[in-house]
């Protein structure tokens, strides 16, 4: 008797998974709970366990292949058409130290050459068995004295390759439109300075306030908390907000759960921990909860505004530019010094239209402009 092991669906909008690594080989006997393979979706590697006992007969998809959800990846003697389980996520346990970054598989020669050429193996993709990096996978050495040769193409690692593919798909398939607004942050920034000057107060950043504003705006308009999925609207529970994090491994967008329901202090602590996990390469599947909205704040780099691409599987993304000092006329026409930032909301037109997006953006700006309200815990249930 032979059954099939299928690519599991690990998220509401997951349509395919990258089979990153096999942990079993044909002929191996496995028991329930044994790790069969590793799936990389979006930005997360997830270990997939055997749902029961059986012997692996053959592997139908090689490591490195992208496999649609529900397609067979292996044949085994166990239960027919088994969709294996995702390994139980660990975040409920008392948090141990951040797990070690994944081991890089490389041959000794490749390691020596990389050392000699000052290359980082972490950014390379291996063509050998199990994705092992071989000497041939290294970019060619560049002789220092020689005239600059035509730039050698740098192969992408899995994370960046996946991101490139998914973002191209998003930009191609999602009918984007954009609404922009200036938000007056004068009072918010003053409040923040005062708060951060309080002895013992946790440091509050503009990003924390933006996350809170996005979450609360979403909680106030639950009808917008939805995404496009297979020709239908899929409502999402909870005012979760994604946060774009720039890391040495690439761009990650982990999700802050219940951003719309958390008191500001609690939100700040959780957001800081989330960013730390992203930078350490220690994100778990729990950090990738379904969300309709992501925040991308590039203001600290001085850009005036950002017109972002909606993350695959989501319907909105808010780009935030740098805070600028500007003069605005007051009611009498006299110039008043203000500190403003430009917000650009990119949205999926299949899910919401211009008026809804503009209303949503106005709500975010209004929350930012009433900073005292941010200090109050959000009303229960939004």
């Amino acid at each position, binding site marked *: 008797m032979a059954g099939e092991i299928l690519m599991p669906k690990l998220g509401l909008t997951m349509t395919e998974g990258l089979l990153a690594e096999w942990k079993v080989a044909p002929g191996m006997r496995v028991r329930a709970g044994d790790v069969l393979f590793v799936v990389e979706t979006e930005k997360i590697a997830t270990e997939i366990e055997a749902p029961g006992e059986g012997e692996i007969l053959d592997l139908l998809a090689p490591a490195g292949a992208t496999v649609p959800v529900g397609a067979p990846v292996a044949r085994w003697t166990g239960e027919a058409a088994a969709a294996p389980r995702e390994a139980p996520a660990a975040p409920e346990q008392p948090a141990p130290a951040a797990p070690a970054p994944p081991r890089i598989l490389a*041959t*000794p*020669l490749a390691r*020596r050459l990389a050392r000699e050429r000052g290359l980082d193996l972490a950014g390379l993709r291996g063509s*050998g*068995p199990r994705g092992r990096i*071989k*000497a041939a996978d290294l970019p060619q050495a560049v002789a220092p004295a020689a005239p600059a040769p035509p730039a050698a193409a740098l192969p992408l690692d899995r994370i960046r390759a996946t991101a490139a593919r998914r973002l191209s798909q998003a930009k191609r398939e999602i009918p984007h439109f954009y609404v922009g607004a200036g938000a007056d942050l004068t009072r918010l920034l003053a409040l923040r300075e005062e708060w951060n000057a309080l002895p013992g107060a946790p440091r509050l950043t503009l990003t924390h306030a933006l996350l809170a504003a996005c979450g609360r705006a979403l909680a106030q308009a639950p009808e917008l908390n939805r995404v496009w999925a297979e020709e239908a609207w899929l409502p999402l529970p909870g005012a979760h907000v994604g946060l774009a994090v720039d890391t040495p491994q690439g761009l990650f967008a982990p999700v802050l759960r219940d951003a719309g329901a958390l008191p500001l202090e609690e939100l700040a602590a959780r957001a800081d921990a989330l960013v730390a996990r992203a930078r350490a390469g220690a994100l778990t599947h729990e950090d990738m909860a379904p969300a309709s909205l992501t925040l991308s704040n590039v203001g600290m780099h001085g850009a005036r505004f950002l017109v972002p691409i909606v993350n695959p599987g989501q319907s909105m993304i808010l780009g935030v530019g740098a805070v600028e000092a500007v003069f605005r006329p007051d009611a009498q026409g006299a110039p008043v010094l203000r500190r403003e930032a430009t917000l650009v909301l990119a949205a999926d037109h299949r899910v919401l239209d211009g008026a809804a997006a503009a209303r949503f953006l106005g709500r975010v700006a209004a929350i930012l402009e009433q900073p005292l309200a941010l200090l109050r815990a959000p009303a229960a249930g939004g």
Partner: protein
Amino acid sequence: MPELRTLQAITRALADAMEADPSVILLGEDIGQAGGPFGATRGLQERFGPERVRDTPIAEAALAGAAVGAALTGLRPVAEIMFMDFITLAMDALVNQAAKARFMFGGQRGVPMVLRTPHGGGLSAGPQHSQCLEAWLCHVPGLKVVCPATPADAYGLLRSAIADPDPVIVVEHKGLYAMKGELADPPEWTPIGRARLARPGRDATILCYGAALHWSLAAAEELAREGVEAEVLDLRSLQPWDEAAVLESLSRTHRLVIAHEAVEAFGVGAEIAARMADIGFDELDAPILRVGAPFTPVPFAHPLEAAWRPDAARIAAAVRRTLA
């Protein structure tokens, strides 16, 4: 260069050594009048007399012990054991006497003896007449072990072994006795401890000895049709072995496959693989692979024996694996 069979090259080496040095004598079962079980000593008793070409009883322990004693007292005996399988009976003389004497007696005496013996299968000779036991001997400090794969090396290594001041085991392959090859005139000696580049290549090194040389060359030919240039290195001398040549080849090809007919587990290939994983670590672009016989006695039935022995296809498959 004239062509001749391996067996004729061995006979020639024995005759030339006896001609050159009157202290060289031969000992073995049926080596005199009968000319040896495979014919390696044919004509030598007629030529050099029964004093120097001695038939012994069917008692391997006795003939090996006599060779040790003769060597300690000034002769250069060349003993023959009919099948390597029977070397079990001669182990005390080899391991505890021949290998130890120089070290135990303050270097006053060496044991300049040679023990010739054929190993290997392919003749459907069964589990007690087909074994390749050379790894046992390579493990004993004080013994040298060589294994020629061509008529030229059968001659050259035997001459070097007879001239060596210490005990040397010359492992021949009975399946190669009839193989023809060239022999220079006058024939050249092959130094002990030096490998031979049998076929240059750039993509992977196949290190082999004995009959495996010919499978390796066939594998390299097959791989060349796929665009893979495998280098074939004939080890020739197993103890001491040419570490520098293996490392040099590995440093060019970055991939190593070690092939021998002997059982793979705990074999000569295991030693070389371990050593290269150490001194050659930074050169490796793939795991070192071994191709040897499975861990079971040599089957008697011909089809089973054929399946048991390594061959060109298995060596080529291993090379492809290192290139994956």
